[in-house]
């Protein structure tokens, strides 16, 4: 149906390693008290979903993500410095420090936005798909979300619309087995998510999120189909290595379960495959990992050094520049108290 691009595993590995490395630094940022707030959701263990799907996209394509979206955006080509600065709530961040970890966005890279409402960003890709179809633009829009969002009604409404209108849209469920403390089998009786999408008329597949090549290959097919007007759904099974947020020590799951889950490590698996297949060797990979670690250390330094947003940013961007803006409380009080 589609033509397999010959994407080297090495590239996918690098993307995944960058994500892993970045997320480790995000944890550090938090521990050092430099993050803006505690709402930090690490995607360690989910790197293959991010790398595999994003590798199947073209520059004109777009996407939305959930609250655990750092990895996806990095896979898309984000600048770790500006990401880290955003997570630290700094003016040099992607969203000028107003969005933070859960609301990173970058229109230049087709990132229509991370969302802190579970399921909140899903319908936006339906609208993007409508645009592309309407404007005759050759682009696909992808919604990334977690297994938890599989129980949000808006997903079904969105999938139904995409199927009905044959939109260039792909729904990607990153099933890391947990929504906060709730294992997926405590959230639903049937965990075969692809069947649900299929019943609505989407092309639906599942992929093993430990195997980045498998993810890439499934995504490539589905993205190509979506581009042709056959919207799809991809469930990627993986494991959330750490707690839901930074303060969650996952007391609701056993040490054995965690150990087994963390064995499903897409980064290590790709690394091992590179060595086994002779596409790289330990020394080269060590060097790569080190270079990435340095890049990410720089990102954290950048974020730490960056300036917070200026006070007047508070009233900016509620509406477009030049449009009537909300009156600051102090200005109102000045008026009222002067009058009284």
């Amino acid at each position, binding site marked *: 149906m589609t033509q397999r691009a010959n994407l080297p595993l090495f590239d996918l590995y690098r993307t995944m390693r960058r994500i892993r490395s970045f997320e480790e630094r995000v944890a550090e940022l938090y521990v050092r008290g430099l993050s803006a707030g505690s709402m930090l959701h690490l995607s360690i263990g989910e790197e293959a979903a991010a790398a595999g799907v994003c590798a199947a996209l073209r520059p004109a394509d777009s996407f939305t993500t959930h609250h655990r979206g750092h990895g996806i955006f990095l896979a898309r080509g984000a600048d770790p410095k500006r990401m880290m600065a955003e997570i630290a709530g700094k003016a040099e961040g992607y969203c000028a*420090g107003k969005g933070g970890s859960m609301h990173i966005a970058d229109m230049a890279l087709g990132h229509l936005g991370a969302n802190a409402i579970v399921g909140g960003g899903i319908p936006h890709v339906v609208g993007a798909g409508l645009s592309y179809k309407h404007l005759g633009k050759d682009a696909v829009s992808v919604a990334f979300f977690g297994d938890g969002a599989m129980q949000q009604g808006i997903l079904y409404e969105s999938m139904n*619309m995409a199927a009905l209108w044959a939109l260039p849209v792909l729904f990607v469920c990153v099933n890391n087995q947990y929504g906060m403390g709730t294992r997926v089998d405590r959230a639903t009786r049937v965990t075969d998510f692809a069947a649900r999408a299929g019943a609505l008329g989407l092309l639906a597949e599942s992929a093993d999120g430990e195997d980045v090549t498998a993810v890439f290959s499934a995504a490539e097919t589905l993205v190509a189909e979506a581009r042709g007007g056959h919207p799809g759904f991809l469930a990627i099974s993986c494991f959330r290595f750490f707690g839901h947020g930074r303060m969650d020590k996952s007391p609701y799951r056993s040490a054995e379960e965690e150990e087994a889950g963390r064995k499903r490590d897409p980064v290590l698996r790709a690394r091992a495959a590179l060595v086994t297949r002779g596409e790289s060797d330990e020394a080269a990979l060590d060097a790569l990992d080190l270079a990435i670690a340095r890049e990410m250390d720089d990102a954290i330094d950048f974020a730490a050094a960056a300036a917070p947003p200026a006070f007047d940013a508070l009233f900016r961007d509620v509406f477009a520049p030049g449009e009537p803006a909300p009156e600051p409380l102090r200005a109102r009080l000045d008026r009222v108290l002067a009058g009284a």
Partner: protein
Amino acid sequence: MDSDTHLSETTYRDALRRALDESMREDPRIIVIGEEVGRYGGAYGVTKDLIDKFGDARLIDTPISEPAIVGAAIGAAMTGLRPVAELMYVDFLGLVMDQLANQAAKIRYMFGGQIGVPMVLRTQGGTGRSAGAQHSQSLEGWVMHTPGLRLAMPATAADAYHLLRHALTLPDPVVFIEHKALYARKELVDFAAPVPPWGQAVIRRAGDDVCLVAYSRMVHVALAAAERLAERGITAEVIDLRTLNPLDMATVAASVARIGRAVVVSEGYLTAGVAAELAARISEECFDFLEDPVIRIAGEDVPIPVSPALEAAAVPDAALIVETVARMLG
């Protein structure tokens, strides 16, 4: 409706359709998306026949999926279209407040000003058809309380036309609430007449004894009250706010400061609604000029009953305004 003549007898409904028609002709990015907006022509007939002119790629009939309708409009607005999403009844806001208030209203801000959401959410509200508690509300209060949203509530056919035309050029999300009891209201509209800018209130009737501040259908109720008050020798000024965001307090404050008495009239529930905001602002800005407290006449704090007599009693009428003003001045 003949788009060549500028002066014509036009209903509120036809004025809205004309606005959509002209704007869609001018701006190919405009699409209309919602339940029954296409073949059916809209539950209240506003989009009637537009599908014949613009086709079903621009008048998009949707499944009954309000959250996704608004969500899809947001995504479309972020990627180059200018969607008009239609919510059949404002009562369904409860289904879409997440997409409206957490998404559309906040996207520009959360994303640091990178992008806006130039969409219009058209809907209609109010009493008048005995449609019951879930189809008769006036929920503009929820919208007005949400930063990031513009809010227009036209009372006249001319405003229905001009405000919608204007809304379709704004860079930010606009909630545009029509009134179900006004659709059939006819009026001589001069489509070429100069238009007050977006966000500017108009004085519909001048007076010296009391200032009645209203919007949407309540403008006509206030005008009817003013007429009856005139018979008693009381002259009421009637201000039509036209938009609630922005809110033109300059016009209101100038009038109230001169007159010294204000009654605000809203069909929405009294408590913590638009009437409260208007009363609070007028009290703040005209404190030294007020001879009486600002009086709020608004919807009772009860669900709207279906019985026609009770329904009518649940919202303000001219008699109550007349009686109240007479007592204020008595």
